[in-house]
Protein backbone atom coordinates (compact mmCIF):
# COMPACT_ATOMS: atom_id res chain seq x y z
CA UNK A 1 0.00 0.00 0.00
CA UNK A 2 2.76 2.47 1.01
CA UNK A 3 4.66 1.52 -2.15
CA UNK A 4 1.57 2.39 -4.20
CA UNK A 5 1.36 5.79 -2.51
CA UNK A 6 5.05 6.55 -3.03
CA UNK A 7 4.51 6.17 -6.79
CA UNK A 8 2.02 9.06 -6.78
CA UNK A 9 3.10 12.66 -7.49
CA UNK A 10 4.31 14.48 -4.34
CA UNK A 11 1.39 16.92 -4.46
CA UNK A 12 -1.11 14.03 -4.43
CA UNK A 13 0.83 12.27 -1.65
CA UNK A 14 0.63 15.46 0.40
CA UNK A 15 -3.09 15.72 -0.29
CA UNK A 16 -3.62 12.10 0.77
CA UNK A 17 -1.73 12.75 3.98
CA UNK A 18 -3.85 15.83 4.66
CA UNK A 19 -6.97 13.74 3.96
CA UNK A 20 -5.90 11.14 6.53
CA UNK A 21 -5.10 13.87 9.08
CA UNK A 22 -8.54 15.40 8.56
CA UNK A 23 -10.18 12.00 8.99
CA UNK A 24 -8.35 11.58 12.30
CA UNK A 25 -9.42 15.07 13.38
CA UNK A 26 -13.02 14.23 12.52
CA UNK A 27 -12.82 11.02 14.57
CA UNK A 28 -11.48 12.94 17.55
CA UNK A 29 -14.17 15.64 17.17
CA UNK A 30 -16.89 12.97 16.97
CA UNK A 31 -15.55 11.32 20.15
CA UNK A 32 -15.67 14.69 21.96
CA UNK A 33 -19.18 15.32 20.62
CA UNK A 34 -20.34 11.91 21.88
CA UNK A 35 -18.85 12.61 25.32
CA UNK A 36 -20.54 16.03 25.58
CA UNK A 37 -23.88 14.63 24.38
CA UNK A 38 -23.67 11.80 26.90
CA UNK A 39 -23.00 14.21 29.77
CA UNK A 40 -25.81 16.49 28.59
CA UNK A 41 -28.25 13.55 28.53
CA UNK A 42 -27.23 12.56 32.07
CA UNK A 43 -27.69 16.14 33.30
CA UNK A 44 -31.11 16.41 31.67
CA UNK A 45 -32.18 13.11 33.26
CA UNK A 46 -30.87 14.22 36.67
CA UNK A 47 -32.66 17.58 36.33
CA UNK A 48 -35.91 15.80 35.42
CA UNK A 49 -35.54 13.59 38.52
CA UNK A 50 -34.77 16.60 40.74
CA UNK A 51 -37.86 18.40 39.48
CA UNK A 52 -40.03 15.57 40.83
CA UNK A 53 -38.62 16.07 44.35
CA UNK A 54 -39.80 18.42 47.06
CA UNK A 55 -37.57 21.22 48.40
CA UNK A 56 -36.91 19.23 51.60
CA UNK A 57 -35.45 16.22 49.69
CA UNK A 58 -32.08 14.97 50.94
CA UNK A 59 -29.57 15.26 48.12
CA UNK A 60 -25.89 14.38 47.85
CA UNK A 61 -23.42 15.60 45.27
CA UNK A 62 -20.43 13.43 44.34
CA UNK A 63 -17.07 15.18 44.59
CA UNK A 64 -14.22 12.82 43.80
CA UNK A 65 -14.69 9.87 46.14
CA UNK A 66 -16.86 11.84 48.57
CA UNK A 67 -20.59 12.43 48.61
CA UNK A 68 -21.45 15.78 50.13
CA UNK A 69 -24.89 16.70 51.38
CA UNK A 70 -26.46 19.50 49.39
CA UNK A 71 -29.81 21.11 48.57
CA UNK A 72 -32.17 20.75 45.65
CA UNK A 73 -31.93 24.42 44.62
CA UNK A 74 -28.14 24.47 44.77
CA UNK A 75 -27.68 21.21 42.83
CA UNK A 76 -30.28 22.27 40.23
CA UNK A 77 -28.47 25.59 39.71
CA UNK A 78 -25.11 23.81 39.38
CA UNK A 79 -26.50 21.33 36.87
CA UNK A 80 -28.16 24.09 34.82
CA UNK A 81 -24.87 25.99 34.76
CA UNK A 82 -23.01 22.87 33.62
CA UNK A 83 -25.72 22.22 31.03
CA UNK A 84 -25.32 25.73 29.63
CA UNK A 85 -21.54 25.32 29.47
CA UNK A 86 -21.87 21.97 27.71
CA UNK A 87 -24.42 23.45 25.32
CA UNK A 88 -21.87 26.08 24.28
CA UNK A 89 -19.20 23.40 23.97
CA UNK A 90 -21.56 21.31 21.80
CA UNK A 91 -22.12 24.31 19.49
CA UNK A 92 -18.36 24.87 19.15
CA UNK A 93 -17.77 21.16 18.44
CA UNK A 94 -20.63 21.21 15.91
CA UNK A 95 -18.96 24.09 14.06
CA UNK A 96 -15.58 22.31 14.13
CA UNK A 97 -17.24 19.17 12.76
CA UNK A 98 -18.91 21.14 9.96
CA UNK A 99 -15.61 22.84 9.01
CA UNK A 100 -13.65 19.56 8.95
CA UNK A 101 -16.40 17.82 6.97
CA UNK A 102 -16.34 20.62 4.36
CA UNK A 103 -12.54 20.41 4.13
CA UNK A 104 -12.74 16.62 3.79
CA UNK A 105 -15.32 16.89 1.03
CA UNK A 106 -13.16 19.41 -0.88
CA UNK A 107 -9.99 17.36 -0.54
CA UNK A 108 -11.84 14.16 -1.43
CA UNK A 109 -13.14 15.64 -4.67
CA UNK A 110 -9.63 16.92 -5.52
CA UNK A 111 -8.19 13.48 -4.79
CA UNK A 112 -10.80 11.85 -7.00
CA UNK A 113 -9.71 14.19 -9.81
CA UNK A 114 -6.04 13.44 -9.06
CA UNK A 115 -6.52 9.70 -9.07
CA UNK A 116 -9.16 9.26 -11.78
CA UNK A 117 -6.72 9.13 -14.77
CA UNK A 118 -4.78 6.36 -12.99
CA UNK A 119 -7.83 4.20 -12.45
CA UNK A 120 -9.20 4.69 -15.97
CA UNK A 121 -8.66 1.64 -18.19
CA UNK A 122 -5.90 1.95 -20.75
CA UNK A 123 -7.19 2.34 -24.33
Amino acid at each position, binding site marked *: MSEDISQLPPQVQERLLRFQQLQQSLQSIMAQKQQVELELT*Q*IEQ*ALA*ELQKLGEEAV*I*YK*TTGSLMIKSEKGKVTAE*LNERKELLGTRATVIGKQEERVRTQLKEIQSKLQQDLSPVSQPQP
Partner: protein
Amino acid sequence: MAEKSDEEFRRLSLESRILEQRAEAIQSRINMVSAVIADLNYSSVTLEGLEKERENAELLIPIGGESYAKARLVTPDKVIVGIGAGVSVEKRLQEAKEIMKKRLEDLERTRAALQQQFVQVVDMINKNRESVERLISETREGKAQQNV
Protein backbone atom coordinates in the same frame (compact mmCIF):
# COMPACT_ATOMS: atom_id res chain seq x y z
CA MET B 1 -16.25 -11.39 -16.47
CA ALA B 2 -13.16 -11.82 -14.25
CA GLU B 3 -13.09 -8.07 -13.61
CA LYS B 4 -16.76 -8.19 -12.60
CA SER B 5 -16.05 -11.06 -10.19
CA ASP B 6 -13.06 -9.20 -8.76
CA GLU B 7 -15.18 -6.12 -8.20
CA GLU B 8 -17.94 -8.20 -6.57
CA PHE B 9 -15.35 -9.96 -4.41
CA ARG B 10 -13.89 -6.63 -3.27
CA ARG B 11 -17.37 -5.27 -2.52
CA LEU B 12 -18.30 -8.35 -0.47
CA SER B 13 -14.99 -8.28 1.42
CA LEU B 14 -15.44 -4.62 2.30
CA GLU B 15 -19.05 -5.22 3.35
CA SER B 16 -17.96 -8.16 5.53
CA ARG B 17 -15.31 -6.04 7.26
CA ILE B 18 -17.86 -3.29 8.00
CA LEU B 19 -20.39 -5.86 9.25
CA GLU B 20 -17.79 -7.53 11.47
CA GLN B 21 -16.89 -4.15 12.99
CA ARG B 22 -20.59 -3.48 13.60
CA ALA B 23 -21.02 -6.91 15.24
CA GLU B 24 -18.02 -6.21 17.50
CA ALA B 25 -19.46 -2.81 18.48
CA ILE B 26 -22.85 -4.36 19.29
CA GLN B 27 -21.19 -7.16 21.30
CA SER B 28 -19.21 -4.61 23.26
CA ARG B 29 -22.44 -2.70 24.08
CA ILE B 30 -24.14 -5.97 25.12
CA ASN B 31 -21.22 -6.64 27.49
CA MET B 32 -21.49 -3.14 28.96
CA VAL B 33 -25.25 -3.45 29.47
CA SER B 34 -24.79 -6.93 31.00
CA ALA B 35 -22.24 -5.52 33.46
CA VAL B 36 -24.70 -2.82 34.57
CA ILE B 37 -27.48 -5.46 34.87
CA ALA B 38 -25.20 -7.57 37.10
CA ASP B 39 -24.46 -4.48 39.22
CA LEU B 40 -28.17 -3.66 39.57
CA ASN B 41 -28.99 -7.27 40.50
CA TYR B 42 -26.29 -7.04 43.17
CA SER B 43 -27.81 -3.83 44.53
CA SER B 44 -31.31 -5.40 44.52
CA VAL B 45 -29.98 -8.31 46.61
CA THR B 46 -28.35 -5.78 49.00
CA LEU B 47 -31.63 -3.86 49.34
CA GLU B 48 -33.50 -7.12 50.06
CA GLY B 49 -30.95 -7.87 52.79
CA LEU B 50 -31.13 -4.36 54.29
CA GLU B 51 -34.91 -4.55 54.42
CA LYS B 52 -34.64 -7.33 57.02
CA GLU B 53 -32.31 -5.34 59.28
CA ARG B 54 -33.22 -3.03 62.15
CA GLU B 55 -31.73 0.29 63.29
CA ASN B 56 -28.21 0.02 64.74
CA ALA B 57 -27.59 -3.36 63.13
CA GLU B 58 -23.85 -3.99 62.85
CA LEU B 59 -22.57 -3.87 59.27
CA LEU B 60 -19.24 -4.38 57.56
CA ILE B 61 -18.41 -1.81 54.90
CA PRO B 62 -16.02 -3.08 52.20
CA ILE B 63 -12.90 -0.91 52.02
CA GLY B 64 -11.13 -2.91 49.29
CA GLY B 65 -8.52 -5.64 49.51
CA GLU B 66 -11.12 -8.00 51.01
CA SER B 67 -11.09 -5.81 54.15
CA TYR B 68 -13.98 -4.19 56.01
CA ALA B 69 -14.75 -1.38 58.46
CA LYS B 70 -17.41 -1.85 61.12
CA ALA B 71 -20.48 0.40 60.92
CA ARG B 72 -24.01 0.70 62.31
CA LEU B 73 -27.17 1.11 60.28
CA VAL B 74 -28.61 4.53 61.12
CA THR B 75 -31.69 4.62 58.89
CA PRO B 76 -32.66 1.10 57.77
CA ASP B 77 -35.66 2.40 55.82
CA LYS B 78 -33.69 4.94 53.75
CA VAL B 79 -30.94 4.57 51.16
CA ILE B 80 -29.17 6.94 48.77
CA VAL B 81 -29.81 6.37 45.06
CA GLY B 82 -27.76 7.88 42.23
CA ILE B 83 -29.76 9.76 39.58
CA GLY B 84 -26.83 10.52 37.25
CA ALA B 85 -24.50 13.50 36.72
CA GLY B 86 -22.92 12.88 40.14
CA VAL B 87 -26.17 13.55 42.03
CA SER B 88 -27.72 11.12 44.54
CA VAL B 89 -31.04 11.36 46.33
CA GLU B 90 -32.27 9.85 49.59
CA LYS B 91 -35.13 7.43 48.94
CA ARG B 92 -37.28 5.14 51.03
CA LEU B 93 -36.03 1.56 50.71
CA GLN B 94 -39.20 0.40 48.98
CA GLU B 95 -38.93 3.26 46.47
CA ALA B 96 -35.26 2.42 45.84
CA LYS B 97 -36.24 -1.20 45.15
CA GLU B 98 -38.83 -0.04 42.62
CA ILE B 99 -36.26 2.25 40.93
CA MET B 100 -33.79 -0.67 40.64
CA LYS B 101 -36.54 -2.90 39.24
CA LYS B 102 -37.51 -0.28 36.64
CA ARG B 103 -33.85 0.25 35.64
CA LEU B 104 -33.38 -3.51 35.35
CA GLU B 105 -36.46 -3.85 33.14
CA ASP B 106 -35.27 -1.00 30.87
CA LEU B 107 -31.81 -2.53 30.58
CA GLU B 108 -33.18 -6.03 29.91
CA ARG B 109 -35.20 -4.52 27.05
CA THR B 110 -32.12 -2.72 25.71
CA ARG B 111 -30.08 -5.93 25.90
CA ALA B 112 -32.79 -7.92 24.09
CA ALA B 113 -32.90 -5.29 21.30
CA LEU B 114 -29.09 -5.35 21.01
CA GLN B 115 -29.06 -9.15 20.90
CA GLN B 116 -31.62 -9.04 18.11
CA GLN B 117 -29.44 -6.56 16.18
CA PHE B 118 -26.43 -8.81 16.75
CA VAL B 119 -28.26 -11.86 15.34
CA GLN B 120 -29.29 -9.82 12.27
CA VAL B 121 -25.74 -8.64 11.63
CA VAL B 122 -24.32 -12.17 12.09
CA ASP B 123 -26.95 -13.43 9.63
CA MET B 124 -25.80 -10.79 7.09
CA ILE B 125 -22.16 -11.81 7.66
CA ASN B 126 -23.05 -15.46 7.01
CA LYS B 127 -24.96 -14.57 3.84
CA ASN B 128 -21.98 -12.52 2.67
CA ARG B 129 -19.66 -15.46 3.39
CA GLU B 130 -21.88 -17.78 1.34
CA SER B 131 -21.80 -15.28 -1.56
CA VAL B 132 -17.99 -15.11 -1.39
CA GLU B 133 -17.74 -18.92 -1.37
CA ARG B 134 -20.13 -19.14 -4.34
CA LEU B 135 -18.11 -16.50 -6.20
CA ILE B 136 -14.87 -18.39 -5.56
CA SER B 137 -16.33 -21.68 -6.78
CA GLU B 138 -17.82 -19.98 -9.88
CA THR B 139 -14.44 -18.41 -10.67
CA ARG B 140 -12.72 -21.81 -10.24
CA GLU B 141 -15.27 -23.51 -12.52
CA GLY B 142 -14.81 -20.75 -15.13
CA LYS B 143 -11.02 -21.18 -15.06
CA ALA B 144 -11.33 -24.98 -15.29
CA GLN B 145 -13.59 -24.66 -18.36
CA GLN B 146 -11.11 -22.26 -19.99
CA ASN B 147 -8.34 -24.81 -19.46
CA VAL B 148 -10.33 -27.59 -21.20
